[in-house]
């Protein structure tokens, strides 16, 4: 009897995996979207029920399994410059004090999770959470070097597409500064050859 209940529970578990993935899937065309919208909407209502949501998070099935899909997103990196006025030395950090590779990977995913660093409406301004995150990183470095001038920049790295490489339109990684704290200024584009 217990096994039967357990099996039913696991079938429901797999059903929930199915539900979460269907609801989080990014459908390609608007025609398809409009056709299945009512179904998706009712499924979304179901999978956001508190009980199901809490269980899904406890089981680690609340996310969509579409890693790198439907396309690979942009990659971001940070650079922190710590200027010492007395010695005119500049200390450059890519990560705010993180030492291990595992932590750096998680830091990179945090930068990527901030939805592009540029809002949809105004491409010159970063979304509020991204701005607040940059400020938070800046504050942390400032606390470590209280008497130094700190500058934090967030860069977007653009990989040349296969077509661009073939047609020689872009042959190098394009690194664009997209956000700066404390002040935002216009910067020239950087090429990967002298950025790293």
């Amino acid at each position: 009897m217990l096994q039967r209940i357990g099996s039913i529970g696991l079938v429901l578990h797999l059903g929930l995996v199915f539900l979460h993935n269907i609801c989080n899937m990014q459908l390609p065309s608007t025609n398809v979207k409009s056709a299945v919208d009512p179904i998706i909407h009712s499924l979304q209502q179901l999978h956001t029920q508190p009980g199901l949501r809490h269980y899904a998070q406890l089981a680690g099935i609340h996310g969509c399994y579409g890693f790198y899909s439907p396309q690979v997103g942009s990659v971001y990196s940070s650079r922190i410059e710590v200027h010492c006025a007395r010695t005119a030395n500049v200390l450059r950090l890519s990560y705010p004090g993180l030492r291990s590779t595992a932590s750096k990977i998680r830091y990179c995913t945090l930068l990527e999770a901030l939805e592009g660093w540029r809002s949809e409406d105004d491409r010159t301004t970063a979304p509020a959470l991204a701005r607040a995150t940059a400020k938070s990183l800046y504050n942390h470095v400032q606390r470590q070097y209280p008497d130094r001038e700190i500058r934090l920049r967030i860069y977007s790295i653009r990989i040349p597409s296969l077509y661009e490489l073939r047609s020689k339109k872009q042959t190098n990684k394009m690194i664009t500064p997209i956000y700066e704290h404390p002040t935002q200024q216009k910067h020239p584009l950087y090429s990967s050859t002298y950025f790293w």
Partner: protein
Amino acid sequence: MNIRHSRNTPYTAARTFGDELQLLPRGIGILLWIEMLQLWPDLSLLYGPHSIYDTELLRYWHSGSGWNWEELFRRTHPLWIHVTATLYSISCLCLFFGRWIPYSSLLLLLIHHGLFMADLRWAYGADYLAQTGLLFSLLFGHRPQTDSLHKWQQKGLYFWQAQLVLVYFFGGLGKALGPTWWNGEAIWKAVQQPFPGNLLDIPLHWGSWPMCWVIIGISVVLLELGYALAWLGTTYRRIICITTIAMHVGIALTIGLYHFSALMIWYNLCAWYYPYRTQTSYPIHKSSLEHAVFDAASTVKTAPVQYKERR
């Protein structure tokens, strides 16, 4: 069936299909422990009052489910982060050595949830999959003592395989819905923007062979969509298992996601390789004999069917 009896070294009957799911928590334990060891030097920067992330922003990263350990860390002594990490590590080691598996799995499930599921700042795909693996360890990772528990573990193995089939199928479906995996752009972009620590850098001039990237991209999509073919028989299972492991080795080397790759390789081995290995007898110095007798009887009875299944 290889059942040996000796006065000095008692041997139990062959492992039955599904017993190999007991290996799942061992691998998860060691992999999560290695990850925690790597995070250890930076723990106080990731969590707690000295974190690189401001307290007032935490609510934006709370998943809305469960207890966020970070809120506790912010209010207490920084030492508690390391105490929690120590508990996490001890649970991992218990899993690895096969000790108190249900309790260790439960504790690890709760701590992992608190650190990576409830607080989304430092979480990524591997953590979600590790959480699911811990749930299966909790349900199926223990040593079965009765026939009924053996059957439960056999079911568990099929459910574990189904879980992986869904993971890969939806991974493949998501990729197939966009054009970039079909024309090679997505796989090219993925290997060109590695995480820190990757071993193999793909030179940019390799982009001048677009057909290679088209083939690799389509292969990845087809492999993930066709992952369920592993259920069709030995040949399909071997092909799917080997190619999937090869894909994860590639992800580790070129993108640098070692933890994710190692976890997925282990999951695949537990689902498709270990359960189908040739049965061998093994010593039972520390296991109960009545279980062995029962196991032997049930295995002999259904041997032809099981042998066919395992091929």
